[in-house]
């Protein structure tokens, strides 16, 4: 998908591009689009970015976002228009490539091409850099040149969801209604209810959507369904909810087929690729508890006949640290990748199996250098740690049920704890 040249996209609306061209910039704080309060001013709808209205007259900005033609709104000599987008204290997102006059004011047009900035942002998110703040302003956006008959797609204001959506819409004329989900993706936000019935109704009212479009249809991603009661949306604001496909990439086909999604479009997949993408999130999400545990293991390693020795800390503590890390990788990386091929349904059991195999392999290779007690400790500790971290992967999976996870935890946590305690005892005993 990456298109290196795309940072030079046609629609790089002048001033905005140069200003936002700093990857380190935090998009959220650069507040072209500050989080909006519940202002009901109708011209506040489509964000803060709307320009003084007068100067854009006549420029229905045809083809502004099209990549094929040199667009009128973004050419060099249109400086008057470009400057009219500027507002003191505001900054345009790089993906806004024009503004569309509508009965409720100017609506920002977004580009369907992702730029280098978008890719950098996504990469940062995967590795947990600034994860909590990657959001766009909620409100109404336009793709292409939609009119009163064009469809309205509902989306979350998590920048990655927003990017994934607009990227698929090249050549379409659509409205995007972005909900305030506090920078959280559709599925998660739907689970929490922030992507939900009330927010849809509020956003429809606030944007004055019923004056922008003449029809009464909203296309909501299927994964938003846990938070949205379609019949209530219809009752309260008159718009009928149509559930679109699970993946944004199926949207064009869905629209072309007259809002029909095949069974495959309605299923959540959990491919090896999906799981691989999640492992960095998983690892960076482990956070402090894991760091403390690692430190504790290291320090415990220093305990021995001479009460505490630095040498022992390095040798025994370091060794135990490696065991811990091996368990962590077994549980948080290897198990997720092998998930569908491992036997048994509980994640804890899958993790324990992977951990045991690695422990046995380690013993085969290094067994002679380890004492019996140390070897025994390794054999217990590694599977227990792997099992724990595998169990935590339930949070990233797409098919575990809360009642199942709870049952699994009630069963396996005592076993994991017992194995770890015995292992720790044996390991400490081996020091003397």
């Amino acid at each position, binding site marked *: 998908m990456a298109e290196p040249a795309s940072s030079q996209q046609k629609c790089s609306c002048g001033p905005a591009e140069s200003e936002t061209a700093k990857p380190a910039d935090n998009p959220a704080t650069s507040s072209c689009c500050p989080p909006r309060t519940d202002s009901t001013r109708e011209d506040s709808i489509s964000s803060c970015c709307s320009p003084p209205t007068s100067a854009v007259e006549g420029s229905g900005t045809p083809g502004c976002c099209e990549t094929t033609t040199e667009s009128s709104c973004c050419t060099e000599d249109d400086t008057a228009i470009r400057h009219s987008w500027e507002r003191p204290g505001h900054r345009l997102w790089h993906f806004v490539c024009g503004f569309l006059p509508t009965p409720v004011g100017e609506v920002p047009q977004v580009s369907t091409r992702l730029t280098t900035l978008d890719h950098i942002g996504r990469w940062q*998110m*995967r590795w947990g850099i600034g994860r909590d703040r990657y959001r766009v302003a909620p409100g109404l956006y336009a793709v292409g040149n939609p009119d009163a008959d064009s469809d309205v797609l509902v989306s979350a204001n998590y920048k990655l969801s927003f990017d994934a959506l607009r990227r698929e819409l090249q050549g379409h004329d659509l409205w995007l209604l972005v909900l305030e989900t506090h920078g959280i993706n559709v599925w998660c936000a739907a689970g929490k209810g922030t992507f939900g019935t009330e927010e849809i109704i509020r956003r429809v009212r606030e944007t004055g959507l019923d004056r922008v479009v003449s029809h009464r249809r909203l296309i909501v991603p*299927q994964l938003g369904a846990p938070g949205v*009661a379609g019949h209530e949306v219809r009752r309260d604001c008159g718009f009928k909810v149509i*559930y679109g496909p*699970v993946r944004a990439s199926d949207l064009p086909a869905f629209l072309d087929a007259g809002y029909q999604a095949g069974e495959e479009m309605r299923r959540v997949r959990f491919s090896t690729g999906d799981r691989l993408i999640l492992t960095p999130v998983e690892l960076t999400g482990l956070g402090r508890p894991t760091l403390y545990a690692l430190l504790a293991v290291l320090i415990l390693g220093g305990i021995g006949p001479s009460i505490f020795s630095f040498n022992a800390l390095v040798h025994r503590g370091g060794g135990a640290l490696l065991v811990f890390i091996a368990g962590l990788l077994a549980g948080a990386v290897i198990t997720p990748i092998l998930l569908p091929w491992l036997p048994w349904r509980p994640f804890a059991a899958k993790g324990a199996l992977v951990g045991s195999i690695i422990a046995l392999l380690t013993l085969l290779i290094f067994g002679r250098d380890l004492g019996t007690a140390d070897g025994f400790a390794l054999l217990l500790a590694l599977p227990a740690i792997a099992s724990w971290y595998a169990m935590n992967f339930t949070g990233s999976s*797409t098919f575990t049920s809360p009642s*199942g996870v709870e049952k699994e935890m009630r069963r396996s946590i005592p076993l994991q704890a017992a194995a770890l305690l015995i292992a720790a005892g044996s390991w400490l005993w081996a020091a003397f």
Partner: protein
Amino acid sequence: MREYAYLNEYVSLQLDSGKCTGCGLCQQVCPHAVLRVEDGKARIDARERCMECGACAKNCAFDALKVEAGVGCASAIIYGWLTGKEASCDCSGGC
């Protein structure tokens, strides 16, 4: 694609066929094809695939479906146990 199935015997999904009108919406919103509408009635086709996301119950205008919806996430449940609050994950990333 391999089918995923989880600890099925615990899933709280319940269908009251008496109330079901066969509108088909539950089948449409379910991400794991758990429900199937046949002969004007919904039926639980693959209970073991249900992840208790709650989409079906939320969208059944006739109140025919019940499920204890929540997040199937270990750290959220631990959080719930420790604080006594409802389990909730602040999954800002990928979950």
